[in-house]
């Protein structure tokens, strides 16, 4: 009985939290962040590790830089060396970070930032060395990166207590103790990862995986008795959504997006995109504090407050930046800033902290999304009629009592680390939503999976479908409060169509920027 009650709480909370958000993820969601794509947070995942043998760990994945086309050379998608990328964890219920992982990047060209040069004829029998315009000058393999023109490295610090004033310590390589880690170069194309004379796409895909995987590090985290893992690199876009259709006033036939059998009716328009993932796996015992097993997590990106553009730019100094760090991107629960927060407040949201979230309360108590859907698909589709949405407020800002409520009033992803992970092959993309039937908890329901969103968030969780349904009243138990509560809303693109690994870092390798046959279409 206790188990059932707990489960019900999880599902209810999950769905309620989800309902305040909807549709797309957090790609280019606010006006100001569109000017700063390198620091644009897109998706945040936090879950008990489900890799075999890693049950004692929790994985965090923070994605940045949306809409990467694999062929996006010649610079591709290195991280911003002038930015600060962070993953925050609250483990004592005060809506403020207690543990922060900070990532800083450094990009350098070969030959002391002069780059790889080729000897070009001067026409008089001699040669002159001229720098090449590309980031590699030949084939790159797991064993040989000497042809790389661009070296991407990063450091990781763990900060305890306040992110700015707390104690920062270096995360180090468990093998050798280095403080500097390598980010693999993006998947330039088949030729760059197979052969100059006989490029082969399949061979390059295998080779790139081997090349990138060698930069999955076992790391010593100060304050943690057991080593964790770190990886940063380009990955295949992990988020599936019918993006253009959704933002075009949900330009899809009502008969399709309300028919559960058509959840995968159209191709995922994000399927050929790439993303840059920062992934870290931490011993769970190192994340929690005392008997409190519920943690809250979110990602941010910050840049220096002032940027002065160098009128005589160089590779090393295109601008001079300084001042304090200023947060310009924030992401916890998916889609909140994208579709819940009003346009006028989206930039403010990105600069805000969870502890101050009551300033956005009206967007939760009186959400516009259900009303928009009713307008777009009426008269048969009806938004919930009961206001204010106190259920959403409780779940969204506080979590679910006895499940993942932690006493904090804040928007971030909550994970009860006491609840075990579901094995990869048994995960339900609808997460805890599958535990509810007709608004009532049924733990025997097929696919009931309490380890899924919004008890944390796993890569496979279809947050779009879950949130859309809950927004329209899926949790209500009567048709008066929510006339369309049992309509199986979806975006016609299924999250489970994305292929994920069953081992850290879980998010899959990207597609090549060229295929080795003269084409570059993914």
């Amino acid at each position: 009985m206790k188990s059932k009650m707990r489960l019900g709480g999880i599902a209810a909370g999950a769905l309620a939290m989800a309902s305040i958000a909807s549709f797309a993820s957090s790609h280019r969601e606010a006006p100001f962040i569109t000017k700063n794509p390198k620091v644009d947070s897109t998706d945040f995942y936090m879950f008990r590790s489900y890799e075999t043998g890693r049950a004692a760990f929790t994985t965090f994945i923070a994605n940045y830089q949306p809409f990467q086309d694999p062929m996006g050379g010649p610079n591709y998608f290195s991280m911003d060396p002038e930015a600060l990328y962070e993953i925050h964890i609250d483990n004592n219920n005060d809506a403020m970070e207690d543990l922060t992982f900070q990532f800083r990047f450094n990009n350098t060209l070969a030959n002391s930032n002069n780059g790889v040069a080729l000897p070009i004829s001067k026409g008089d029998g001699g040669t002159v060395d001229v720098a090449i315009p590309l980031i590699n000058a030949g084939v790159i393999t797991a064993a040989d990166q000497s042809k790389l023109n661009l070296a991407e490295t990063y450091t990781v610090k763990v900060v305890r207590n306040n992110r700015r004033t707390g104690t920062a310590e270096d995360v180090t390589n468990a093998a050798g103790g280095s403080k500097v880690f390598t980010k693999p170069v993006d998947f330039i194309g088949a030729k760059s990862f197979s052969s100059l004379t006989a490029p082969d796409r399949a061979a390059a895909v295998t080779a790139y995986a081997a090349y990138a995987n060698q930069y999955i590090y076992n790391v010593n985290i100060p304050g943690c008795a057991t080593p964790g893992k770190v990886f940063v690199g380009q990955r295949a876009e992990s988020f599936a959504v019918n993006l253009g259709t959704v933002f075009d006033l949900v330009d899809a036939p009502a008969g399709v997006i309300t028919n559960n059998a058509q959840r995968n009716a159209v191709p995922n328009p994000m399927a050929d995109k790439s993303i840059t993932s920062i992934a870290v796996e931490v011993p769970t015992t190192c994340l929690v504090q005392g008997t409190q097993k519920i943690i809250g997590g979110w990602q941010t990106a910050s840049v220096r407050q002032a940027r002065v553009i160098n009128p005589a730019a160089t590779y090393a100094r295109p601008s001079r930046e300084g001042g304090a760090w200023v947060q310009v991107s924030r992401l916890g629960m998916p889609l909140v800033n994208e579709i819940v927060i009003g346009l006028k407040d989206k930039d403010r949201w990105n600069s805000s902290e969870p502890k101050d979230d009551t300033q956005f309360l009206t967007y939760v108590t009186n959400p516009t999304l259900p009303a928009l859907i009713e307008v777009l698909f009426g008269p048969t589709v009806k938004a919930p009629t009961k206001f204010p949405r106190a259920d959403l407020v409780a779940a969204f800002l506080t979590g679910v009592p006895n499940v993942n409520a932690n006493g904090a009033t804040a928007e971030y992803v909550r994970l009860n680390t006491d609840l075990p992970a579901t094995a990869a092959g048994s995960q339900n993309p609808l997460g805890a939503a599958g535990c509810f039937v007709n608004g009532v908890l049924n733990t025997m329901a097929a696919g009931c999976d309490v380890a899924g969103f919004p008890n944390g968030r796993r890569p496979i969780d279809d947050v779009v479908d879950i949130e859309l349904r809950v927004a329209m009243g899926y949790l209500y138990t009567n048709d008066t409060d929510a006339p369309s509560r049992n309509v199986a809303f979806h975006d016609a693109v299924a999250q489970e169509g994305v292929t994920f690994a069953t081992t850290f870092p879980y998010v899959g390798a990207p597609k090549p920027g060229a295929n080795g046959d003269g084409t570059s279409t993914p």
Partner: protein
Amino acid sequence: MSALRAFFCAGALALVVSGCNRGGNNTEDGGYKLPDGGTTNNPDGGMSELEITDFAKDLILNHTADNNLPETTEDKTFKDSESSSGFPSSFFQ
């Protein structure tokens, strides 16, 4: 004239506007401490305009640290005289 304008552009400035936290360089009466030691507060209580070039330069030269908090901007009035001497080439070395 275009050459002059180009020179002004040497100081092209992008400020990341912060809407948060305290102003660590603010004076007790709410004015902003200028690099020369003065403040933006006028004796008559009004706010004077702050040269944005000076503001940015001061941030970079004197407030670049991992444990600083951003300066507020909405409580300040900025002016941009497009000073050609704002950011000499040595600033970028």
